């Protein structure tokens, strides 16, 4: 149906828990063709917008990672005829909050405004997205902040582990580089690099937008054109190669003089569009998902007191996927902890879940889904992610039915596929005891590499 020059197509109903709270998701298409998903909801006088350009730090030059991230710190540091201080003052006077960030596969932004200030907010966002000045002073200042963070990270056990894990799992690939870059690369980034990234990545066809709050479709449609309309139609993205995690079965130990060993572990996961993804969500919940009842939590923490934190998670990417996790335990018990975790991977792979475990996992996953949508900010973020994941507008309606349909055989199949022989890429930072730094479990590194490309 055409309403005053804007197109409002089908509506989907968020009926995650009872029809009473059904919120309509509208597909709003601006006169120039920019599509936003909108939940119009005026209980709280606030508007939340989340958007993203597909691409992200995977589009950084391999020799100079950190450009996307540095750019994300500069868009609100001066734009149009407002210099950095003037722009920041405008934000404060209008209570508008704008934030940008780079992830591996997208360059993201968010806007939060009181509904009475929406005109100011949209104008400030337009300036930031399309007319950021990238003046020399803020470039040097945000570069200095980024370098401060990198120096801090360089001796932080968790950050060292993440950096090492990514580099080991994805050698010679953008996913092996940190979004924030390195001290060397960030020092070398020029204004031209930033301008080039923006020109290549900010476009209308790779843009997704989600809006929630006190605004209707008629008001949003022209605003979309005002904010994003000046961007080129198409981005210039380079292809990113598909890659599956390498070095499975290897231990990497990084020596750091701390009393506790921080461990990251993982192996191949799934891309989001894999037909096994939903059964894998259920499988991961049983293994090490986010409640206090998972196998890893029970065995590592509850029964043995080995760690404060132990978890696993699925990490889908545009061109890869990980099943990964982490634990931190005192150096003397690090070997015991990782052996226990590998044993849990193996036993779930060999025996699958029990009917009872499956039933409980489904109850949690379906019951808790509504908790992801209890604030405007969360709904906007969730809708943006659903779009980035290439899922349909009625996904929220159907998601719990997809979980319900998972059978024990599905989880068994997926556990076999993903957990395999339980071999893991393990990165340990600290002074771990009982922990070789070569291959593990009698599998030669070469064989493990071969097995990794599932």
């Amino acid at each position, binding site marked *: 149906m055409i309403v005053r020059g804007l197109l409002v197509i089908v509506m989907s109903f968020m009926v995650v828990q009872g029809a009473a709270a059904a919120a309509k998701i509208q597909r709003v298409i601006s006169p120039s063709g920019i599509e936003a998903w909108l939940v119009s909801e005026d209980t709280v006088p606030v508007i939340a917008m989340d958007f993203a350009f597909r691409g992200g730090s995977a589009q950084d030059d391999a020799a100079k990672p950190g450009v996307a991230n540095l750019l994300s710190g500069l868009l609100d540091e001066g734009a149009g005829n407002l210099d950095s201080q003037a722009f920041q003052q405008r934000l404060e006077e209008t209570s508008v909050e704008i934030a940008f960030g780079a992830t591996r596969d997208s360059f993201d932004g968010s806007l939060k405004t009181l509904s009475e200030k929406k005109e100011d907010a949209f104008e400030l966002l337009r300036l930031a997205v399309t007319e950021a000045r990238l003046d020399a002073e803020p470039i040097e200042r945000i570069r200095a902040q980024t370098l401060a963070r990198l120096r801090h990270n360089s001796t932080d056990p968790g950050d060292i582990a993440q950096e090492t894990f990514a580099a080991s799992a994805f050698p010679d690939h953008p996913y092996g580089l940190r979004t924030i870059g390195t001290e060397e690369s960030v020092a070398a980034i020029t204004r031209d690099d930033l301008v080039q990234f923006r020109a290549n990545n900010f476009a209308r066809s790779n843009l997704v937008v989600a809006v929630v709050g006190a605004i209707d479709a008629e008001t949003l449609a022209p605003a979309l054109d005002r904010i994003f309309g000046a961007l080129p139609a198409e981005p210039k993205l380079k292809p990113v190669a598909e890659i599956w995690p390498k070095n499975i079965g290897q231990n990497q130990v990084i020596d750091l003089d701390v009393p506790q060993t921080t461990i990251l572990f993982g192996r191949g996961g799934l891309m989001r569009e894999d037909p096994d993804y939903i059964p894998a969500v259920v499988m991961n919940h049983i293994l090490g998902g986010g409640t206090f009842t998972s196998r890893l939590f029970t065995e590592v923490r509850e029964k043995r007191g080995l760690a404060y934190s132990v978890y696993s998670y699925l990490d889908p990417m545009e061109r890869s996927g990980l099943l990964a996790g982490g634990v931190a335990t005192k150096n003397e018990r690090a070997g015991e902890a990782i052996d226990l975790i590998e044993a849990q991977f193996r036993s779930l792979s060999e025996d699958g879940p029990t009917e009872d475990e499956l039933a409980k996992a489904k*109850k949690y996953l379906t019951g808790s889904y509504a*908790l992801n949508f209890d604030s405007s900010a969360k709904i906007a973020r969730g809708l943006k992610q659903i779009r980035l994941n290439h899922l349909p507008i009625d996904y929220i309606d159907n998601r719990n039915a997809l979980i319900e349909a998972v059978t024990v055989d599905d989880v068994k199949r997926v556990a076999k596929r993903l957990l395999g022989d339980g071999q893991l890429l393990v990165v340990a930072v600290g002074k771990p005891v009982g922990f070789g730094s070569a291959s593990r479990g009698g599998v030669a590194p070469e064989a493990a590499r071969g097995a990794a490309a599932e």
Partner: protein
Amino acid sequence: MAPAFLASRTVPSGYMKKLLRLMTHALIGAAAATLPFGGAAQAQTARATAPNVETFTLDNGLDVVVVPDRRAPVVTHMIWYRAGSADEPPGKSGIAHFLEHLMFKGTKKHPAGEFSNQVSELGGQENAFTSYDYTAYYQRVPKTALKTVMEFEADRMTGLVLTDEVVLPERDVILEERRMRTDSDPSAQLSEAVSAALWMNHPYGLPIIGWEHEMQTLNRDDAIAFYERFYTPNNAILVIAGDVDKAEVETLARETYGAVPRRFATPVRNRPTEPPQLAARQVALADARVRQPSVSRVYLSPSYRTAEGEQAYALDLLSVILGGGSTSRLYRSLVVEQGIAASAGAYYSGTALDANRFAVYALPRPGVELTALEKAIDAEIGRLTRDGVTPEELDRAKTRLIAETIYDLDNQTSLARTFGVALTTGMSVEDVVNWPERIKAVTAEDVAAAARTVLVTRQSVTGLLEPAPTGDRP
């Protein structure tokens, strides 16, 4: 338990500037609550823009706060105890937090794991946290599950059963938690030393998680003794935010918590107080793991409960004007104009039962000495205490703080927290609801006067985080 790998992808709020702010906060060691199951404690405030809040008290003395938010069929259920680490007996540091962990170990009626299993099967999320002045437990559940979690939570107010079989492994867990939060991070270690120096007599000088050597000796009897002293309905506050109204909650609360007897008289929280502070203190930590140094100055300052007149409100505004963002004085001067700092800011921890802290901090750019940063900070503080603040600065700070309270209306869990923190730190529901009006009424003279009273060097500790000289291992 946020996944850790490539955090920018898995943690959507992990935007660079926010991360940097968080890092800076962590570096400077803003006191935080600790949780039994991971995740970062949020900054605690006690302010709100007039949400539709209602209160009542049960016959057994349990205070109840209801904050309706009917947008989604979800509720946040929280029970807050007026008991925190500052209420621990001498020599037992960490027992408030240890007990918080042990509260998940089962009761006479429900053996270990049953409550967590039930919450999980209901599609709920749960956790708990401990701070200096309070311990709180919460579940976020579908509305239909509210009564069930109320029954379980009421049950563990009296029925806790502890055996060494569950207590000893859990003691290992909190020791691992300490290793993770503190011992693996030189800035957290420095932060403990700063607090220990700032409070010369008050127990806020002890870490919430406890000193390691005392944690190692904590046992079942210590936990039960703390439980038997503080866990009673007349020392607790029930906060329910979400898809409910007062009448529903009143019925459910009478049926569940109403059955819990008043176990003992409401404990009186009289902590040792600070003597006059006459000597400026400085603590320094040099460690081979430090590659990004920092300097902070922490001033002993009144809290909302102990402050006179508008002083605490003025201190909140002062922290914004001095160091609350990119246009603040410290950031503008040290980071933008002089280019000697990578980051600089200020914060005020005013929601506390007793005198707390007002802090300023800066991270140097390479080649800048910490003493130079300290001088630059002192120059800005001197200018502010001498000349006061401008009307424009004050207006911007007020706009920002009041807008934050409106944004908080979007999040039922932070609303629930707001009331829990207020009521466990000596404030009332009216204080919270009237907060924006009180902020609006603060004058430039109030802010200058508060700065002159609080930003006094002899009542402060300066903390220096430095790299170890080459070759020196910690």
